[in-house]
């Protein structure tokens, strides 16, 4: 598997974890995933939805980009904190390969 394939698999694993968090309604395509790239196509699940999580590596950093739609059930900060712990936990258990600094770029696209 290429490094990019590996990142895509990790994105899918994280997406699974993040979407199962209470308060996360759905994931949204990241802004750069809206561009019709091969990555976006690979990230598409059978439902036809782009995954909304993008793992990339550069230098000594792992960058995790997440665009999420939340609902009203919990405060935004609570859900954000849980997203962070879920991502960190996935890295701790090896679902995502650890490597240097972890940058989580999280955007709440909507809340409703």
């Amino acid at each position, binding site marked *: 598997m290429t490094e990019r394939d590996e990142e895509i698999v990790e994105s899918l694993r994280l997406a699974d974890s993040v979407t199962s968090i209470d308060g996360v309604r759905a994931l949204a395509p990241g802004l750069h995933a809206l561009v019709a790239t091969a990555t976006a196509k690979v990230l598409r699940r059978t439902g036809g939805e782009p995954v909304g999580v993008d793992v990339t590596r550069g230098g000594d950093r792992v960058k995790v980009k997440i665009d999420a739609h939340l609902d009203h059930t919990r405060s*935004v900060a609570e859900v954000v*904190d849980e997203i962070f712990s879920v991502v960190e936990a996935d890295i701790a258990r090896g679902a995502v390969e650890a490597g240097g600094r972890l940058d989580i770029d*999280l955007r709440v696209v909507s809340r409703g």
Partner: protein
Amino acid sequence: MDMNEHVSSGTEPDPTSSESHQETDDQLRGVIDEYMSTFQPEPEDTAGVRERILQLVRDDLYRGPSTHLQTEHGHPFAISTASVRSIVRNAVDSVDGIRARSVDVEPAGVPEGSAATVSLTVAMRAGISFASTADVIRRSVSAAILAELGIPAARIDINAEDVYVD
């Protein structure tokens, strides 16, 4: 317009006179009314257009600007500015006699984004006393951003800019 009638009476009609316009309008009234009733939008037409407009607007909103905040555990996040304003607007609207107008929420505190500064303008129902209501608004907004965002309000500035009558 019956030209013969005017010629025989020895006068030329003034085509820009309002009487002249009135005559032509009357004759045309029937066909104009028929034309107008033919071109009436169907409810399905308006519903379809409405749906397409709102979807395009929603898509545009998703690409809109973000506000950068931070949870109390130090986790930074961006949130669509429209969502943040919506939380404040709802809190303001829930105060009797007050309608939110312009809402601005800026990251504040140390580290920046751990609190929020809110500036807003409102319209008040005629008869409402601003002095006593301002505090109610502040409490409502403060509680809402803490409960919905999980971020405390550092400051809330309110300006009443208009009065409405129900």
